[in-house]
């Protein structure tokens, strides 16, 4: 292996490791956000809806489980997507895999 090849090899390894770290971080974000996604919809809106329906959201007539199933979960969905988009824009930039502004 010549010196130039060794340098290339090293640069390649560096890029590969950086991409792997980027991907691991992405998977962690996905894990956290999808857990919230599951809890607000399937958890509070469906599995726990019955006991939660005995409670009211203060100041309104909404039973808590019913509200999550027909309103709350949808609001949280919207927030989750914007949070993910924001997190990933930062991550792309930090790991040098963003697309720039000219694409």
């Amino acid at each position, binding site marked *: 292996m010549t010196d130039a090849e060794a340098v290339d090899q090293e640069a390649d390894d560096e890029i590969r490791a950086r*991409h792997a770290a*980027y*991907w691991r971080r*992405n998977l962690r974000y*996905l894990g956290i*956000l*999808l857990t919230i*996604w599951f809890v607000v*919809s*399937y958890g509070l*809106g*469906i*599995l726990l*809806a*019955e006991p939660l*329906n005995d409670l009211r*959201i203060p100041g*309104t*007539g*909404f*039973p808590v489980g*019913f*509200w999550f*199933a*027909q*309103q709350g*979960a*949808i*609001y949280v*969905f*919207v927030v*989750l*997507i*914007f949070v*993910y*988009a924001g997190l*990933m*824009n930062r991550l*792309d930039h930090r790991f*040098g*895999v*963003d*697309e720039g502004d000219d*694409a």
Partner: protein
Amino acid sequence: MNVQAWTFTLVAASFALYIGIAIWSRATSTKDFYVAGAGVSPVANGMATAADWMSAASFISMAGLISFMGYDGSVYLLGWTGGYVLLALLLAPYLRKYGAFTVPDFVGDRYYSQTARIVAVVCAIFVSFTYVAGQMRGVGIVFSRFLEVDVNVGVYIGMGIVFFYAVLGGMKGITYTQVAQYCVLIFAYMVPAIFLSLLITGNPIPQLGFGGIDQASGLSLLERLNGLHQELGFAAYTDGTKSTLDVFLITAALMVGTAGLPHVIIRFYTVPRVRDARISVGWALVFIALLYTTAPAVAVFARSNLIASVSETAYADVPPWFTNWEATGLLQFEDYNRDGLIQFVGPSSPETNELTVDNDIMVLANPEIAGLPDWIVGLVAAGGLAAALSTAAGLLLVVSSAVSHDLLKRALKPDITERGELIVARVAAGAAVVVAGYLGIHPPGFVAQVVAFAFGLAASSFFPAIILGIFSRRTTREGAILGMVTGITFTAAYIVWFKLMHPDLNTADHWWLGISPEGIGTVGMLLNFAVTIVVSRITPEPPEVVQILVDKVRIPRGAGVAHEINV
């Protein structure tokens, strides 16, 4: 101006707008035709996606369906919005990075197999035609109800409009028309909802109003509705009657199906960058959520209004909207006990119930029930047409690109010229409009039955194949094909068994583990995942070039570069 004149004016004005946009945004290349030149802004694409997604069923039927189902209606609200989270986090950015034109494009290339491509093409065409037949029918029904023309004439007019902008403009024309259609439909949905909310609760925001106080009785609106339901023998509005397992599985099938529907996925090929694809899904859901959080409020207002104005009312004293809608057959009253009063009671005593209400009436009749001005009735007609036409156009594009791009260009005749492919794409779009119109005029009896089919099929076929194609490098051609075939076959067999072959057995007692045909797509999807993963472990790993492709798809930098793999 009377209602008819207002309706005619508003519908004609909206159609003129769509045609104007189509002329302004003609497609000049296949890239324009398939993905609008990949130059659509994320917010505009979000609006177009919302119009693409919200069909005649969302606009006309959903609120009525929820008002009839109460808590159980949540499956539609959660299912048809939660899928966008999956789309934004697991699919859209990677598919945009891949930079293909269609869904079968990705499946065929990632699984280095023409068989996988063809399986995907067949699924895409089947799902889209199932859906589009209902849309064309919806156009015909809106025309016949509001403008008193024959349903078939309505379908022809709808075909003419869609033909014009889909064939001429392709995805580019469709996208900008859909932006306009979203504005029309959301305005038409919100105006009556806001009026109703003010009227009943004094709060102009429907999302808050339906948790508020009913001005007539001074009680909480939901509590009053629950009370009325109990008196009349319905289940409490805010509790469900379906089993928790079934609600869970139906919601999951609808969510995953949403994320796997080709006409939704391809919308995110039209934005310039990966980061735009992520944020654009967010905008799409904002625009969709506006209608989807209003719908359950409208459902409650309509239900309360209906019960308050008809229950135990003398038939001789009913308001004029009652007799108007009775004439259309959507409201039916039969005075069984001949006391001259309307008994509207729940399923516990079906023999004494005298009133049958079609779900669709809740949105369509709302402006009249609330005594709103005539122009709002016309607006609702224009909104319903916008919802149906925008969805039909998006679906037709999937069919046309499946034929001209996936079958012809990628499988049969790879050396076709750009010009030739564009001509074939236009001819295919035109042919698809004609077939869709035919299905709208002669709806096969099973159309209503197979709506669940479209979602179940998308959930149990595309979704696992695409997810594993991105998130597991080791997934092989054999695994994906066997997984898709297993998932589809299982789901289709279960639905066909209960919906077509033995509709008499279609009750919770006969279902496997109490899972309804609507929810079985979730089980099909899990089967698909299991088969794909196991088979992939025991078959030779994918070629190096495919593994490199997967690595590239995961990294945003370098979007827009085509990676065609020839197999």
